C-alpha cells in the first residue's frame, strides 16, 4: 500500500480511516498539497475549496471518532463544475457562469455530503460539457498527466486528470456522448456512465437532456461501485430518474466471469483506428476468454450513423437548454448595449465560447422551420434503429467490449479548430448515450506511455454485469495501478 495518502483508493482510505491510522484532515491535506504541487502543470481544477474541505474533514473525523463511518466518509473528492454546489461557484467552465453561486446543491452533491464527502474543489471541463479535449474551457485547458502536451479528453477532462494526478481520490463527471468514458480512457482511470435515468440530474446544468448522465471517475472498479452505491437512485425532482431499486454494487464484484457472454462489435474497430489500440483491445479480449468468458463477434451496422444522429440531437437539445442564458436572472450580462434585444444578443455573443456557439447554431438550424423533419425527426428515427440493434445484441450477449476511443490522447491544439475531427474522437462512445445504455471505460494498456481505454457496454440497468467483468479484469491485471510520473 502506498504511503502517499492522496494516491489511496476509496476502499484503502476507508480502511485506514476506520483503523485510525490516518485522519480525514491528513488525507485532505495530502490532496491539497498535491494540488499545489501539480496543478500549475495539469490544470484540472477551476476552483479549489480548501477551507470548506478542511471543515468537512474535521467534521468527518468527529463522526469517525464516534464510530460513525461509511465507505465515503472523510474521503476527498472533486466535482465536475457542471453540478451545482451551494455557496461554491459553479461555472461550467464558461464566462457565462463565471460568478454564478448556486443557492442549492445538486442531488448527487447532497447525497455525497450526507455520505461524508470532503470536497476539495470543482473540476475543469469543456464549456457546458461540449467537447472532447477540455480545450474548450473558457479558463484554461487541462493537460494529460501522462504527457502534458496531450489532451486529457473531455468534457470531464479535469475530473479524469485529477484522479490520474492524485489531486483527489475520486471525482464525479457527466457523460452526454462519452464525456466520462473518453477522458477516463485517455487518463487511464476507471469511469462509469450509468444507464440514462439511474442517477438524478437535479442540479446538473443541462446540456442535452435526453442524453446527459452523471457518473464516477475513480482509480478502480471497487471505488466506482462504492460511489454508485451513494449516488444512484430515484429522485422525484428529476422526472427522468428511474424508480428501479438500487442494488449494492459491490456484491457483484466476485472475480468470477466464467460462462459470461461477451460480444465484440466489429464496427467499433473502425477504419483509421490506431493499430496499437486495436492490438491492446484484442489482447484484453483474449484475456477475458482465458478467464472463462465466451466471446463472439456481433455486427451493429447502424454504428456508422451514430455520429450524425448525435450531432443533430445533442446540439438541438443544447440550443433549447442554453436559451436560458440571456443575462436576465443570473450569469453574465453584456454592459453597454442599446436595447433589450441588443443586450441579449451581445450577452450570448460574448458570454459563450466558439464551440458552444457553434452547437447552438447547429441545433437551431436543425430545429428550424423546414429542416425539422430532415434533421431532428430523422435523427430520432435512426436513434430507434440504433437502440433496437443493441437490444438484439443483448439477447445473445451479456456485454459488448470495444475500445473507448479509436486513438490514444492527441496533442493539445491538434483538433481544436477542426470540429469534425474533434467529433470523431467520440465515435466509440456516442452510440451508448443514444441508446441510453450503461458503459464503463477501464485502463487496458499503453502505447508509448499513452493510455488506452477499454469500454464495456451492457443493457439498461445492468451496471452490475459491467462492474463484475471490469473488476475481474482488474483483479488479473495492473494497468489501473500505474501512475503517471509528474
Amino acid at each position: 500500500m502506498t504511503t502517499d495518502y492522496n494516491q489511496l483508493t476509496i476502499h484503502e482510505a476507508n480502511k485506514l480511516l476506520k483503523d485510525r491510522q490516518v485522519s480525514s484532515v491528513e488525507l485532505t491535506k495530502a490532496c491539497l498539497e498535491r494540488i499545489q504541487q501539480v496543478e500549475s502543470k495539469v490544470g484540472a481544477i477551476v476552483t479549489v475549496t480548501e477551507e470548506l474541505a478542511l471543515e468537512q474533514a474535521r467534521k468527518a473525523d468527529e463522526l469517525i471518532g464516534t464510530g460513525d463511518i461509511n465507505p465515503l466518509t472523510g474521503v476527498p473528492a472533486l466535482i465536475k463544475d457542471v453540478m451545482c454546489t451551494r455557496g461554491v461557484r459553479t461555472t461550467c467552465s464558461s464566462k457565462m457562469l463565471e460568478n454564478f453561486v448556486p443557492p442549492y446543491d445538486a442531488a448527487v452533491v447532497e447525497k455525497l455530503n450526507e455520505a461524508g464527502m470532503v470536497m476539495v474543489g470543482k473540476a475543469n471541463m469543456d464549456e457546458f460539457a461540449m467537447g472532447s479535449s477540455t480545450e474548450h474551457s473558457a479558463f484554461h485547458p487541462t493537460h494529460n498527466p501522462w504527457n502534458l502536451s496531450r489532451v486529457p479528453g473531455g468534457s470531464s477532462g479535469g475530473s479524469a486528470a485529477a484522479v490520474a494526478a492524485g489531486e483527489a481520490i475520486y471525482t464525479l463527471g457527466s457523460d452526454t456522448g462519452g464525456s466520462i468514458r473518453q477522458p477516463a480512457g485517455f487518463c487511464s482511470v476507471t469511469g462509469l456512465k450509468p444507464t440514462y435515468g439511474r442517477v438524478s440530474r437535479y442540479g446538473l446544468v443541462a446540456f442535452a437532456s435526453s442524453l446527459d448522465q452523471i457518473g464516477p471517475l475513480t482509480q478502480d472498479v471497487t471505488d466506482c461501485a462504492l460511489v454508485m452505491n451513494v449516488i444512484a437512485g430515484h429522485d422525484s425532482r428529476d422526472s427522468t430518474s428511474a424508480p428501479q431499486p438500487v442494488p449494492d454494487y459491490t456484491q457483484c464484484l466476485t472475480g468470477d466471469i466464467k460462462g459470461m457472454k461477451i460480444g465484440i462489435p466489429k464496427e467499433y474497430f473502425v477504419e483509421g483506428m490506431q493499430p496499437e489500440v486495436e492490438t491492446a483491445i484484442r489482447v484484453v479480449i483474449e484475456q477475458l476468454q482465458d478467464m472463462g468468458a465466451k466471446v463472439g463477434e456481433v455486427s451493429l451496422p447502424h454504428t456508422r450513423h451514430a455520429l450524425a444522429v448525435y450531432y443533430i440531437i445533442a446540439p438541438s437539445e443544447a440550443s433549447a437548454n442554453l436559451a436560458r442564458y440571456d443575462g436576465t436572472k443570473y450569469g453574465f450580462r453584456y454592459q453597454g448595449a442599446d436595447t433589450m434585444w441588443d443586450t441579449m444578443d451581445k450577452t450570448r455573443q460574448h458570454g459563450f465560447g466558439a464551440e458552444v456557439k457553434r452547437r447552438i447554431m447547429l441545433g437551431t438550424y436543425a430545429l428550424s422551420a423546414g429542416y425539422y423533419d430532415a434533421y431532428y425527426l430523422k435523427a430520432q428515427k435512426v436513434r430507434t434503429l440504433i437502440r433496437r440493434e443493441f437490444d438484439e445484441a443483448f439477447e445473445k450477449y451479456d456485454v459488448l467490449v470495444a475500445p473507448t476511443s479509436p486513438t490514444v490522447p492527441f496533442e493539445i491544439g491538434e483538433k481544436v479548430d477542426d470540429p469534425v475531427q474533434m467529433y470523431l474522437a467520440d465515435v466509440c462512445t456516442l452510440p451508448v448515450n443514444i441508446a441510453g445504455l450503461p458503459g464503463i471505460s477501464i485502463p487496458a494498456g499503453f502505447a508509448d506511455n499513452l493510455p488506452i481505454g477499454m469500454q464495456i457496454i451492457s443493457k439498461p440497468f445492468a451496471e452490475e454485469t459491467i462492474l463484475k467483468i471490469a473488476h475481474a479484469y482488474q483483479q488479473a491485471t495492473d494497468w489501473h495501478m500505474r501512475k503517471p510520473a509528474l
Partner: protein
Amino acid sequence: MKLSREEVLHIAQLARLGVSDEDVERAREQLSNILENFEILQSVDTDDIPPTAQSLVLQNVLREDESCDSFPRKDILANAPQEDEDSFRVRAVLE
C-alpha cells in the same frame, strides 16, 4: 453546398446570438462541413420507424400537487446581473 450569409444570419437571429462578419464566414464554412456529415442519414430507410425522444420507458410521471417552500428571494437575487429592490432590473421591453 455552403450555407449562405443570409441563412447564417437567420439562424443567429433565431438563437439570439450576436455575430461579427468574421463569425458569419466561419459559421458558413464550419456548419456546412458538419451538415455534409449528416447527409449519411438520408440513405437510411426509416419508413414505419417511430422516433425515440429519450431512451427510458417512463411516461407521464406524475406527483401530488403539494406546496413547498421556494427559495428565499435574496438568494435568487444574489446572482442577478442587476437588481432593483426585490426585482431583476432589465432593459425596457417596449421602447
